[in-house]
């Protein structure tokens, strides 16, 4: 393929021009993207520090009074602790019950495996909706789980398990069995295999599920609302709706301050997990 020098130069110049234009568009796109994501969040960074916040975003007068007022509310900070309890507990259950199950479902083949998983996935959408409220309440009542942390945790886990197993199984599927087979040859039993061979490799997947489940429960209003009765056990998602005045007007000062305090833990959880385990799907086996 020979070209004349002229053509080559012209091609190169065209290329450069095109590349330049493409680059401009690219930068513009990135800027637009960042703007799109940042603009709605501005309120979260300005309103809590304003002495008279409204729904508008403006330069705040940098006061911490709202936080003081929030702390005075007897339920505000304890509710954050409650959210931690519920979220952390649910993550634990989901990982402990879900990882082995996902592994088994990935390795074992039996008829209807996929269909069962899909059906469970579909059921989980009923159970996390409003219609299942009464059945869940009565089941919890029969088992003595009303107004308890552990009861709420295990029921929350139930709703999240299908999707977690689904994702983890898919993740585990991408890992060839060669390691397990060699480990088996070396006499490892199943438990050791799970712990020493599989778990480290699917660690990023576990991290993703952990964060996803944590975030899910952190936001969950419906189940804690149905199952927890004492205000002092209510998590932040429920308590957030109680910041009203005597007459039923939303107290934006407290809501704004609470919003930031309510958001920071999940942010930290994500950063922590990302730093330590890498927040990626399908890390896969390398080498």
């Amino acid at each position, binding site marked *: 393929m020979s070209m004349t020098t002229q053509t080559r130069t012209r091609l190169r110049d065209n290329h450069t021009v095109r590349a330049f234009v493409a680059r401009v568009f690219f930068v513009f796109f*990135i800027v637009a993207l*960042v703007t799109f*994501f940042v*603009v*709605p*969040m501005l*309120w979260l960074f300005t309103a809590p520090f304003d002495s008279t916040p409204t*729904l*508008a*975003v403006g330069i705040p007068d940098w006061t911490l009074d709202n936080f003081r007022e929030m702390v005075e509310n007897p339920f505000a900070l304890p509710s954050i602790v409650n959210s931690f309890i519920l979220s952390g507990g649910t993550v634990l259950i989901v990982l*402990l*019950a879900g990882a*082995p199950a996902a*592994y*088994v479902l990935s*390795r*074992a083949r039996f008829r209807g495996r996929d*269909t069962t998983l899909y059906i469970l996935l*579909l*059921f*989980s*959408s009923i*159970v*996390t909706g*409003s*219609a*299942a*409220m*009464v059945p*869940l309440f*009565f*089941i919890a009542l029969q088992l003595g789980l009303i107004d308890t942390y552990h009861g709420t945790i*295990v029921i929350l*886990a139930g709703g999240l398990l299908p999707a977690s197993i689904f*994702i983890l199984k898919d993740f585990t*599927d*991408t890992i*060839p*069995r060669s390691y*397990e087979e060699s480990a088996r040859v070396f006499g490892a039993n199943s438990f050791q*295999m799970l712990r020493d*061979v599989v778990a480290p*490799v699917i660690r990023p997947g576990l991290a993703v599920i952990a964060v996803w489940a944590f*975030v899910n429960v952190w*936001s969950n*209003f419906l189940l804690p609302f149905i199952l927890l009765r004492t205000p002092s056990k209510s998590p932040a*998602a429920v308590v*957030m*709706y109680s910041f009203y005045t005597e007459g039923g007007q939303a107290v934006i000062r407290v809501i704004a301050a609470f919003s930031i305090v*309510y*958001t920071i833990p*999940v*942010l930290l959880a994500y950063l922590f997990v990302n730093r330590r385990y890498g*927040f990626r*799907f399908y*890390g*896969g*086996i*390398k*080498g």
Partner: protein
Amino acid sequence: MTKSQQETQPLPRVKEPAGVVVSRRGALIWLLPAGIIVIAFLIAPAIWTLVLGLTNYRLTGIEAKEPQFVGLENFENALTDPAFINSIWVTILFVLGSAVFGQAVLGFIIAWSIRNLAPRVRSSIELLVILAWIIPSSVVTFLWIALLNGQEGTLNTILGIDTEWLLRYPLLSIIVFNIWRGTAFSMLLSSAALASLPPSYLQTAKLAGASNWQQLRDVVLPSIKGYLITNLLLITLWTFNDFTPFLITGGGPGGKTETVPVFIYQEALRFLELGYGSAIAAIALAINFVIAMFYLRSSRRNAAR
């Protein structure tokens, strides 16, 4: 065993023949905890709910004390209820707009665009997108109400107009909202899918003179189709059952943003018509089932290729 090699073994999701990696007994034990939880708190209440759909049970009123079996009456009423039909239509638009054409596409575009950026820049952008996903629902509600407020909202302040977005363009507002909210998942999944793609594929294509766009179309997309399908399935189901728009618009104005989960909420928790609400949930389940089967078939066909 090391994870050191950041390497490039192609990872097609081949189903290897079932080796005896786990004994049958081991398998059952490992399935037990999840199994118990799922049976007690997922299958039992789900079936109970479906059965409730055949009654006229309410949480208050005479039907609370003496619910009666009404067979398929709830389903008949639902299918002739214009409000319900409206909610199905709204949901379809919502899901297509925000999940299928919104999150999935945007998520992929972002993943594709940032894949070669400097790590710091890349992580920062990812952080922003993910932040939108993890901020708690009740907080996000306030953020978007503040954004779209007609008189003093951020958007209007920037654009210098005074449109009451949630009244004039309610469905569009919640679609954009949901795209903002959920793109992170698709982005992460696409990133992972792209990371699993061996560079040699793209290298070959580039050498053969393919443009960026051609590389994308002919090399990348076909290879990661499986991931994309899984992603689409999950976000379709999640968006279909997503209740968050209610917190912003309350299903209004005039039912224009009343999706199926919002409709169920109104029936079950406001009118306390649990029998009717459960029937609606059953219909939603059926629709989800159809969607899931559709994806299952696509993914099987893709894997077989």
